[in-house]
């Protein structure tokens, strides 16, 4: 159906790629290897640094493309998912299909009349699939969309795509590590030296997992106290809490739960972002104030989207800015510490010129080197390959051993089960034991 030849990404030549009908194809590559560029080449788009020849007998209208940030699929022109689905058909000059049957197929019936920008991670991907389904595509391209999803939600979506492949549709999934359903793939494309080895997801790190901090807290004072923390968004019925828990120095705490269970909301409550939060939050005896920026000295937060943070001209300046803004002194060996985050080659690079996972690493480095006692990480391993995940694993252990409490929201269960010494599970905004 589609043949991509003479592929050259950043001066590296890659072998030809053939996309055949009815296959489920896994496309694997490390961070910055050009996975997304290849997916775009299949779509017929060329981006800077990537050249190729493309032969195809199918039209763009028969290809569905879901980017890493599925939100980009929603134009915002219509205020509901139903409207966006109708718009797709109208712009393709096709009769509007049976929206309800598509919604049932992709489990978005209850989302049809909601604003797509209010969806949680899993809802967003299912909605993106349903929008693309309007044009009844022959090929589905998915660019690392599973990393922000709970494993059950990711599997549910993969199974939806499996059903499509049984109808003769082609599925191309991009991954930086091996998914649990890797056996389902009929074909594997390896962009670099990632091997077909399930050990990709195990953490045989230089730091012995058994050595991770697992101290008894009986004799210690809690570093961070959450007492009757509750929060409700202005719209919708979701309510977080009441949450009662303590975090201690050296803690590595994982917050897990399905998409939309309130994990990120809880993390943002600890970061003092949510104005309507009630209850008592304190870190080292200090209480949050309306001057939100002062709270970073007590709890620093690393967002999923690195582009909201970066504005300095070099990586090193970006990291220094965070340290200085907290009033801390720049360590003498800062460059060495940044190198430990795998950013040694990019110290003087412009952050915005880096690939997204590297930009994410810059943000993670600036957060973890800031010297704040509580470090809050939201999906730190999403879209990263095994090598970078191992780097984060070691850096988190290192920060915890120096006395920080690290609180992580993640769907990467192998990662957090190897790393965390305490796990909080959330379901519908409530902590469950």
């Amino acid at each position: 159906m589609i043949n991509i030849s003479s592929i050259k990404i950043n001066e590296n030549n890659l072998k030809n790629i053939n996309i055949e009908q009815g296959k489920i194809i896994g496309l694997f590559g490390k961070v910055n290897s050009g996975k997304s560029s290849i997916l775009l080449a299949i779509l017929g788009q060329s981006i800077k640094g990537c050249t190729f020849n493309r032969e195809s007998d199918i039209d763009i209208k028969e290809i569905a493309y879901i980017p890493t940030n599925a939100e980009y699929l929603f134009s915002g022109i219509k205020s509901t998912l139903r409207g966006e689905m109708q718009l797709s058909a109208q712009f393709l000059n096709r009769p509007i299909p049976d929206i309800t049957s598509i919604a049932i197929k992709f489990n978005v019936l209850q989302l049809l009349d909601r604003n797509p920008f209010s969806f949680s991670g899993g809802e967003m991907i299912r909605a993106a699939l349903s929008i693309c389904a309007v044009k009844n595509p022959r090929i589905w391209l998915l660019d690392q969309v599973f990393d922000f999803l709970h494993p059950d939600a990711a599997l549910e979506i993969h199974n939806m795509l499996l059903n499509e492949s049984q109808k003769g549709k082609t599925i191309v999934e991009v991954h930086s590590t091996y998914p649990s359903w890797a056996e389902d793939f009929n074909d594997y494309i390896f962009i670099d030296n990632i091997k077909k080895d399930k050990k990709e997801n195990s953490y045989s790190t230089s730091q012995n997992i058994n050595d991770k901090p697992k101290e008894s807290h009986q004799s210690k004072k809690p570093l961070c106290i959450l007492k009757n923390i509750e929060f409700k968004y202005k719209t919708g019925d979701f309510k977080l809490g009441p949450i009662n828990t303590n975090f201690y120095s050296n803690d590595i705490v994982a917050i897990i739960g399905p998409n939309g269970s309130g994990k990120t909301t809880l993390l943002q409550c600890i970061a003092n972002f949510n104005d309507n939060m009630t209850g008592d939050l304190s870190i080292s005896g200090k209480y949050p104030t309306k001057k939100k920026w002062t709270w970073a000295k007590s709890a620093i937060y690393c967002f999923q989207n690195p582009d909201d943070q970066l504005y300095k001209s070099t990586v090193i300046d970006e990291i220094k800015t965070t340290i200085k803004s907290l009033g801390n002194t720049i360590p003498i060996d800062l460059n060495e510490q940044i190198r430990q985050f795998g950013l040694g080659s990019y110290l003087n690079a412009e952050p915005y010129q880096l690939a997204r996972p590297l930009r994410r690493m810059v943000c993670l480095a600036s957060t973890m080197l800031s010297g704040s006692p509580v470090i809050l990480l939201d999906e730190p391993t999403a879209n990263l390959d095994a090598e970078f995940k191992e780097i984060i694993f070691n850096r988190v252990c290192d920060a915890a051993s120096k006395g920080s409490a690290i609180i992580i929201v993640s769907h990467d269960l192998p990662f957090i089960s190897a790393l965390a010494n305490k796990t909080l599970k959330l379901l519908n905004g409530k902590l469950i034991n």
Partner: protein
Amino acid sequence: MSISPARAVGWTIICSSLSLFSSLIIFELSITLSLILVILISTMSIKVITRFIILSAPFLIPLLLIHGVINPQFEQTSLFFLMPIRNDGILFAVSTYANISVFLALAINWWHVDRDNMIDWLIARKIPSIFICLIAQSAAMIPLIERRGFSVLRSQNARGIPTGPNLFHRIKAIPSIILPVITSLMNEADHRSYTLWSRGFGQSQFSGVQLPLGQRSDFFYIISVLILPLTVLHMIDLL
């Protein structure tokens, strides 16, 4: 309260035409004031009228003070508690206010047009999809930018960059807010171009216009550039 797109378009055409042809101040004044009244009353909404008063009132007093009292180009006609009164200046001020107000009334009219109805209305009239995208995407991007601005502000606060409490801190924080908004907006425009294009935007049959490969992102860049001033204004408002 929702105003039909047809009505909003109609008022826009009438007001634009009259503002082009009217030249006498008195004629202009009477026409514009009656237009404002008709536009607002036709909406039959207290909310619309209140919004109009709130937005337009701040223009009137400074205009009256500048032209009716201070501006020496207009002849002084009387004194009011030692304050010079210039009748022609007052007329000019009221006329200018009326001109501003008629556009405010129109803007408020458009504000209350339901976006979804508007798009359906344009599609039903076979307007080329590329123009619909251009119009609608510009409007749709404003809430997206608003959200992006809020995220950036929160992200910078989260790493301790102060955006207050005084003016000095706010001015100092402007690069940390504006630069990520602009750069991420350009980045987002680039990515959105691939995805929306793959959805069929800008390539429909009835548009008669199909953007060639490699150039369609320019279309979204144009949109981004159009809304950059709005971004800056919004950021200043956020701070």
